[in-house]
């Protein structure tokens, strides 16, 4: 009779990137059949720790035991040795866009091979169809992965990991791109596997998810464990937030700067997002923060892009008070894909938003103007970098997003359109961005935010516009209650 021991044991794990010590002597254990939440701000070392666990980025020193495989770590690769015991779902889905859903799911999977190593397509399709039924998803096995929405891709990535039959699964920010309905399915599946004895490491910025699904919590700060294996029952949101921040934090409340009777800055009239969809009318007033909410694929991003003048509507018109579009600053939905230019420095990235404002004679950039503008905007958005020439790809998520905001403010816009403004951003930076948006509204800007997070919306928006199937189905103005917001957002799904 063997004594019950943890399925994962990590001792004295350290990892250094350049001059940054991402992990310092970290111990971590995962019991069998437990859901263990790993919390911490951006840059605290969560992703580095789980990457060390899965071998995706080997750690420098320490010992690791996963199931029955035990080894000392010396910086060389060990991912192959533990491949049969652990699956790691990364923050961003890594799918083969040109392969089908079924092929993506069962790539390198013995379950669909016969004894000569040939892949059986029939078996693959069968298994995929069963998975889709279990997960309540409406996707054909032959669909190309590249044609799926962000939420569906994320779910597929998770399904792929879960169906490999490994005892340990790492979920790094699995719900970032998921709608509420998709989240429900995911949680059900995770709980199901948990009862079957599978262990999870779960990373999320959403504390409410932690309370819902996790058993145990470990908190990292600056590459060190500040709270180890605490039971979720004894914790509340505030304690967690304080432990993560290392200082007392209070959630900020929304402010109302709407000038009630002011003329709108921007009006959309008879706008159709797609042909044969209902027509939409919406006004944006100065000082107002509008949240566009709704499930993934509801058209809320499209509506925001139409309002931002980045996308032409199928029909209808978007215009300012005197016919022309006002100046609009855009914070795109995925900062890695379309937010910043990673190889360029902070200065160039910010200035990119206002090249024509900054250039004087014959279109040459005025160094003095650029310096003063970039300095002012990076101070306003609180960008922290080693210098203004540091490549933006080297900054933490929160600072990257602040750079994107600074760029959007370059042309002195009258309207800011921010899609998922705080996705993958830590609590501290989040509050700073909220304060920035409120400050902009108080100066009379119109602010449009697209968000999936109830907390974020209730902390920001004076008006919540629920979008579903490319139309506006509901609207809440002024002093709405959090409970109503959640109900309305759920109701639309």
């Amino acid at each position, binding site marked *: 009779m063997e004594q019950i021991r943890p399925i994962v044991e990590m001792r004295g794990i350290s990892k250094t990137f350049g001059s940054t010590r991402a992990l310092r002597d970290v111990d971590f254990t995962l019991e069998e059949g437990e859901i263990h939440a790993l919390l911490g701000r951006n840059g605290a070392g969560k992703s580095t720790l789980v990457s060390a666990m899965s071998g995706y980025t080997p750690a420098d020193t320490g010992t690791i035991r996963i199931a029955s495989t035990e080894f000392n770590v010396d910086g060389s690769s060990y991912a192959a040795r533990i491949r049969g015991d652990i699956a790691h779902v990364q923050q961003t889905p890594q799918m083969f866009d040109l392969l089908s859903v079924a092929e993506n799911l069962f790539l390198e999977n013995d379950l669909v091979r016969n004894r000569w190593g040939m892949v059986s397509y029939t078996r693959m399709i069968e298994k995929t169809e069963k998975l889709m039924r279990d997960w309540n998803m409406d996707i054909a096995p032959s669909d190309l992965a590249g044609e799926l929405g962000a939420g569906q891709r994320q779910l597929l990535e998770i399904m792929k990991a879960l169906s490999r039959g490994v005892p340990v699964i790492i979920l790094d920010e699995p719900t970032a791109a998921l709608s509420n309905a998709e989240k429900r399915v995911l949680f059900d599946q995770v709980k199901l596997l948990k009862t079957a004895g599978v262990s999870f490491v779960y990373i999320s910025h959403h504390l409410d998810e932690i309370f819902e699904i996790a058993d145990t919590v470990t908190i990292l700060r600056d590459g060190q464990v500040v709270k180890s294996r605490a039971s979720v029952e004894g914790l509340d949101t505030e304690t967690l937030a304080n432990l993560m921040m290392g200082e007392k934090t209070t959630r900020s409340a929304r402010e109302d700067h709407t000038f009630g009777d002011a003329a709108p800055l921007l009006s959309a009239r008879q706008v159709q997002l797609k042909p044969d969809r209902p027509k939409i009318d919406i006004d944006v007033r100065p000082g107002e923060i509008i949240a566009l909410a709704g499930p993934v694929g509801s058209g809320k991003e499209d509506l925001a892009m139409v309002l931002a003048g980045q996308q032409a509507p199928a029909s209808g018109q978007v215009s300012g008070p005197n016919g022309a579009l006002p100046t609009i600053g855009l914070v795109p939905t995925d900062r890695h894909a379309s937010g910043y230019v990673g190889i*360029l420095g902070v200065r160039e990235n910010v200035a990119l938003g206002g090249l024509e404002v900054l250039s004087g004679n014959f279109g040459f950039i005025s160094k003095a103007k650029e310096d003063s503008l970039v300095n002012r905007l990076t101070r306003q958005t609180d960008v922290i970098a080693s210098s203004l020439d540091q490549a933006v790809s080297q900054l933490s998520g929160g600072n990257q997003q602040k750079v994107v905001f600074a760029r959007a403010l370059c042309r002195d816009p009258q309207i800011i359109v921010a899609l998922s403004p705080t996705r993958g951003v830590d609590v501290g930076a989040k509050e700073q961005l909220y304060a920035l948006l409120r400050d902009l509204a108080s100066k009379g800007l119109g602010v449009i935010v697209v968000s999936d997070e109830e907390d974020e919306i209730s902390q920001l928006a004076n008006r919540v516009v629920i979008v579903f199937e490319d139309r506006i189905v509901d609207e809440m103005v002024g002093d709405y209650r959090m409970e109503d917001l959640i109900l309305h957002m759920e109701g639309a799904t």
Partner: protein
Amino acid sequence: MTMEIGVPEGHGGKKMAADGQSALARFGHGFVAGGWTMYPVLLLLIIVGAFIAPRFLSFINIINILEQVSVLGLTTIGLTFVLLIGRLDLSLEGVVGFAPMLAAVMLVPAAAGGFGVELPQWMGLIVALGCAGLIGLFNGFLVVKVGLNPFISTLGLLVLLRGGILIISNGRSIYSPGESLTWLGSAQIAGIPMAVFVFLIVATVVGLVLKYHRYGRALYAIGGNEDAARAAGINVDRMIWSAFFFAGLLAGLAGILLTGRLDSAVTTQGQGIIFSAFAAAVIGGVSLGGGRGTIVGVVSGVLLIGVINNLLTLAQVPSFYVQASTGAVIIIAAILTTVASRRSGGVKTRT
């Protein structure tokens, strides 16, 4: 490389500058990013060259090298526009031959191999540059409007233009195509060929534009992340058109210099130059993936190729070896550039 964590609020970006990086690391980064990597190598070559061949450092020889590289230099600068936005243009080689040839057949009488149009002399330069610019725009059209991969579209155009040269010239080179077409490539000021001035002026202007003009900033941004550039309000499509246009125009100018130097439009003119241009660009630190590269670097790449060719000739190395050793140098230089930029760029951290 640093990553700040948990710094108290209220500190702007600038404050951190002092303690973030060591002065040496900053210098190293600036050195590589500015495109100066190959200059020490170039200097070394020149010193070695001075010992191998005493004639190497003579005024005549240096001018000779500069004149030799001016054609390659202009083509490479043209190519750099397209490379910076993450595209490529193989047809530039065709432009180097086709544009001056078209101008030549429009100028000379039918008896000398012309079309019999016999345009007035002063039209020569305009026809050649106009043709080159139009070819560039056509490339832009194929890439932006039709959506072709530039490798395929410009490869097709390259072959088409090579054939086109033979068609319009009837397979015969055209001699003395006229003053306006040959002046830039043959005239001298104070003993220095006009071509050298053209190359230096173009390099300076383009260098300044890439570094300080909003056009240059937009090129780098598109090469670094096209979607981000679009979201920042840059008209990406128009930028792509323009990059191909300038590339074509500069290749046309390179062709004019070559025609002037030879006082004839030759059917094989420019053959193989695109490979040297790519090599010079890569040696000079231009990234084929877009977003990285400077004219300072491009000039070093062009000079390196020119100096090596010259040295090998002076050292009386058999011509077969010249070609092979140029290839070897390209690979070595590319390795050096890549290693240098990797060392100075630091690694990306994950959070």
